[in-house]
């Protein structure tokens, strides 16, 4: 060819022919006799090479231009700008010098990659294969000329890229070719590249274009693609060779850059429809080996996630909407920036956001990210406004308020958001009170803001676990809402606030109306305030504070002394006694809670140790007796139906028993009359003994502890109870050798094995009462243990299964395993990685806990 090429003539160009600069500029590079597409950086390099100038500028300027930030800031706006000459000669000269250096560096890297491949005998392998391997090993392990090459790295990376290479070469092998075919490894497992073989650049068949495996270039291409956003068809270069999707997938790599690689391809003029891309991805997944290696599985997972990105609500198969990579990138950058800022002031929120978007489909995730980024930008704008407009003291006040606000648990932030955002339409009368509560922050948890919203929040917590909330739980939720909103914030506000709320909480209103009407005279309130805080720190109606030393009466329920009062009113009024409503913390049991409360109220002052034990047990037994005497009251107190099973975060209204003055006086009299010998460990059964086999002093916690205390859990995981007992018990018919659940790379000692088996016995209760013994396991567990623990814990949708990628079924066994995993994670602080199997994670966590983990009923004990 003797005439200079135009951009569309690339396919016919050969090295050495005129027009090399333009050809390369249009996106081509030669590898021997082949032309392959390059990433935009290479395009820039070659673009500038076609018109080199002598004036190359200062070193400082070159460095400035070299930085990617400078380029995206507008110094260079992509190839199109260069092609159109929209860049000054001075800038072009500066860039030329630096990019020449970059090109040389890349040439050196390519040589090193070829040397690496040759070193391990890959130069005998099919075309393209060795190139991929050489690049993978060299780049992933940062191999330097003359440097060491860890042999284990080769061993790991070789199969990692095996499938792509195999497909590229068109060859099918039953097993991945092994590295080091020609040369044994050094005894120290290191290879020193001091004597590299002559470089042999892979030669491709000229008729079969091969796409370069290049994660780094792909990543840059992805970023660069954003620059092309906004270009018009008439200004955009045409016929630039692009990576065909099929070929791209054939060389799909397991790195994160691979995703960018695919997206970058879409930025070209040959963008594909969603349906086409889905078809290609599906085809590739179907061709995956039946038993992929862990590395292959990792990038197969990435393909699945890519597929999810493409199957948003507005991108169903058949949809001809073109996915715009530049647009996606631009949005991604905006979110990245917002996330960095969020992480700076609230790392847990950032972590939670990342967990929230994991596994969501593309359209949904995009909308969420846009709003999240907008909210963060709005916050930033507000803070800037405060700094600009107000005095230092006011600025500091807002800043401190924000810091305090961020420490509020998420459920209460949600509740406040609901009240404010939804309240504007429901009822404006209470918003000012809500605002004041939020400004106060410290009382937000129990203020007027929560009564309406918390009940709905709690309801949702249960519903999204797939559980129909039973009546007793609904009652309990209402009581929590009442405690938080009405009895501290004030009944008047709540009545007003729920005036237009859903019918489901009408009973709340009715209860509160009784409470409000029966209460003390309302405190004068400001206009529009409606008594929101009128009962602040005042004992609630139905109670009088009795002096100490006159029997048992920290708060005496006058209703039990004959004062007329509606049953509901008595029930809820009792909730108001903050001293009698105990919030359970980890490690507590009912017996100790009662004992502590008695001591706090000086009930033990004149009792011996044995008498104290006697009194405590009397009260505990009374709680237990409620199960038969007043089942409704018992269920409200103990939603688990078992006084031995209380959960951190539960609120136990001790006044249900200890507020009964007649009973308490009688119990104290009996204790005073007792002159026997008792101890905590004596014959009297205790209400909440520690789990069997738990060493003295160790704590037992229920599996369904409040997960809001776990940093990084998604809000859906704050649902709390997994309600395992609602599901039928799984039938386990097969027993497998213990080796099936022994994790290869996580050795378990005898104690840890016992722990492991304890967990399995809980997760897989046998229908015939069989107790798993050492040496036995379940085939179900064998299946589940290899599934991602991360998916089990975080991805609710994964539990529901997927017709194309059935990962996990939604059954009782899975729920139990999920509950166990969460409890273990909460207790040990060990989190699973995304690709870590449930079995391996459990083994690792158990080891971290010193191998001392037990299951007893619904409890995980340490």
């Amino acid at each position, binding site marked *: 060819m003797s005439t200079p090429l135009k951009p569309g003539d690339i396919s016919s160009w050969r090295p050495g022919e005129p027009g090399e600069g333009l050809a390369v500029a249009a996106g081509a590079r030669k590898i021997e006799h082949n032309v392959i597409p390059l990433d935009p950086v290479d395009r820039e390099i070659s673009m500038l090479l076609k018109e080199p100038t002598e004036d190359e500028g200062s070193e400082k300027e070159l460095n400035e231009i070299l930085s990617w930030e400078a380029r995206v800031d507008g110094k260079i706006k992509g190839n199109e700008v260069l092609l159109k000459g929209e860049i000054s000669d001075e800038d072009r000269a500066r860039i030329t010098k630096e990019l020449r250096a970059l090109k040389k560096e890349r040439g050196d890297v390519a040589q090193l990659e070829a040397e690496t491949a040759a070193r391990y005998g890959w130069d005998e392998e099919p075309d393209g294969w060795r190139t991929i391997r050489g690049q993978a090993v060299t780049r992933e392990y940062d191999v330097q000329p003359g440097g060491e090459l860890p042999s284990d790295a080769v061993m790991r990376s070789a199969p990692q890229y095996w499938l792509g290479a195999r497909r590229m070469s068109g060859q099918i092998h039953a097993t991945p070719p092994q590295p080091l075919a020609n040369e044994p490894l050094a005894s120290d497992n290191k290879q020193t590249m001091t004597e590299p073989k002559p470089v042999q650049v892979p030669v491709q068949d000229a008729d079969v274009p091969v796409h370069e495996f290049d994660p780094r270039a792909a990543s840059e291409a992805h970023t660069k693609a954003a620059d092309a956003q906004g270009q018009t068809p008439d200004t955009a270069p045409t016929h630039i060779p692009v990576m065909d999707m099929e070929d791209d997938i054939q060389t799909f790599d397991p790195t994160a850059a691979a995703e960018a690689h695919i997206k970058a391809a879409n930025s070209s003029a040959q963008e594909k429809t969603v349906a086409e891309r889905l078809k290609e991805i599906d085809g590739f997944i179907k061709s995956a080996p039946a038993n992929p290696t862990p590395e292959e599985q990792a990038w197969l997972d990435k393909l699945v996630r890519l597929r999810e990105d493409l199957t948003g609500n507005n991108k169903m198969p058949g949809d001809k909407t073109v996915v715009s990579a530049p647009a996606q990138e631009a949005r991604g950058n905006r979110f990245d920036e917002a996330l960095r800022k969020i992480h700076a002031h609230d790392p847990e929120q950032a972590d939670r956001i990342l967990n*929230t*978007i994991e596994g*969501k489909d593309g359209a*949904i995730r995009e*909308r*969420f990210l846009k*709003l999240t980024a*907008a*909210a963060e930008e*709005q*916050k930033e704008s*507000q803070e800037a406004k405060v700094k600009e*407009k*107000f*005095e230092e*003291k*006011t600025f*500091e*006040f807002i800043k401190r308020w*924000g810091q305090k*606000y961020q420490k509020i648990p*998420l459920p209460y932030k*949600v509740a*406040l*958001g*609901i*009240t*404010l*955002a*939804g*309240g504007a*339409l*429901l009822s*404006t009368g209470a*918003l*000012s*009170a*809500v*605002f*004041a*509560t*939020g*400004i106060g922050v410290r009382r937000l948890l129990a*203020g007027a803001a929560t009564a309406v*919203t918390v009940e*709905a929040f709690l309801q*949702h917590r249960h519903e*999204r676990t797939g559980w129909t909330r039973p009546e007793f739980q609904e009652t309990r939720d209402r009581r929590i809402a009442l405690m938080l909103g009405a009895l501290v914030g004030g009944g008047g506000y709540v009545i007003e606030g729920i005036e*237009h*709320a*859903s019918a*489901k909480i009408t009973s709340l209103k009715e209860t509160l109306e009784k409470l409000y009407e029966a209460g003390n005279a309302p405190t004068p309130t*400001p206009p*529009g*305030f409606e008594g*929101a*805080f009128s009962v602040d720190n005042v004992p609630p109606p139905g109670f009088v504070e009795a002096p100490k030393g006159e029997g048992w009466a920290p708060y005496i329920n006058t209703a039990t002394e004959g004062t007329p009062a509606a049953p509901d009113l008595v029930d809820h009024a009792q909730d108001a006694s903050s001293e009698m409503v105990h919030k359970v913390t980890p490690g507590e049991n009912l017996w100790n809670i009662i004992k502590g409360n008695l001591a706090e109220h000086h009930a033990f002052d004149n009792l011996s140790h044995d008498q104290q034990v006697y009194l405590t047990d009397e009260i505990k037994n009374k709680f237990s007796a409620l199960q038969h005497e007043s089942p409704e009251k018992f269920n409200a107190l103990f939603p688990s139906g078992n006084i031995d099973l209380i959960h951190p975060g539960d609120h136990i209204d001790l006044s249900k028993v200890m507020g009964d003055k007649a009973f308490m006086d009688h119990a104290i009299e009996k204790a005073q009359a007792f002159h026997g010998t008792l101890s905590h460990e004596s014959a009297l059964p205790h209400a909440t003994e520690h789990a069997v086999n738990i060493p003295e002093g160790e704590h037992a916690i229920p599996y369904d502890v409040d997960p809001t205390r776990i940093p990084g859990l*998604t*809000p*859906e995981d704050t649902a709390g109870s997994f309600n395992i007992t609602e599901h039928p018990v799984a039938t386990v018919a097969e027993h497998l050798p213990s080796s099936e659940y022994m994790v290869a790379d996580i050795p378990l000692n005898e104690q840890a094995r016992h722990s492991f088996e304890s967990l399995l016995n809980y997760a897989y209760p046998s229908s015939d009462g069989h107790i798993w013994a050492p040496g036995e396991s379940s085939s179900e567990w064998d299946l589940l243990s290899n599934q991602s623990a991360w998916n089990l814990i975080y991805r609710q949708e994964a539990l529901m299964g997927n017709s194309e990628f059935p990962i996990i079924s939604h059954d009782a066994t899975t729920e139990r395993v999920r509950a166990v995993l969460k409890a273990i994670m909460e207790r040990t602080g060990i989190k699973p990685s995304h690709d870590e199997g449930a079995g391996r994670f459990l083994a690792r966590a158990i080891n971290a806990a010193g191998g001392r983990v037990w299951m007893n009923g619904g409890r995980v004990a340490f």
Partner: protein
Amino acid sequence: MHPSARAVAVKELEIEDLPHDMQDSLLASVGENIMRGVAIAALEKLSPEDQELFGTIAEGGDERKTLEFLSSKIPDFNAFVADETKKVIAEVKAMAE
């Protein structure tokens, strides 16, 4: 039947089609911005001296005093909060476009 507060809030933010965990995250974030936005709007209505006094009262933790103070300085404070709330919501939705 009147809708629940949550349903109204979710509709107001136009996030009905998002999963609940995403809704929760956004409700929390936007709720904080509403709080800050209303506070800023309220502060703008106050003199520098009153601004400082407001900060002192609010940090004292007495919500009733805080509300009494703002209600005495800003006419129809309930409506004011409602209006500013709507402005913050509208703004964040516009910024997300």
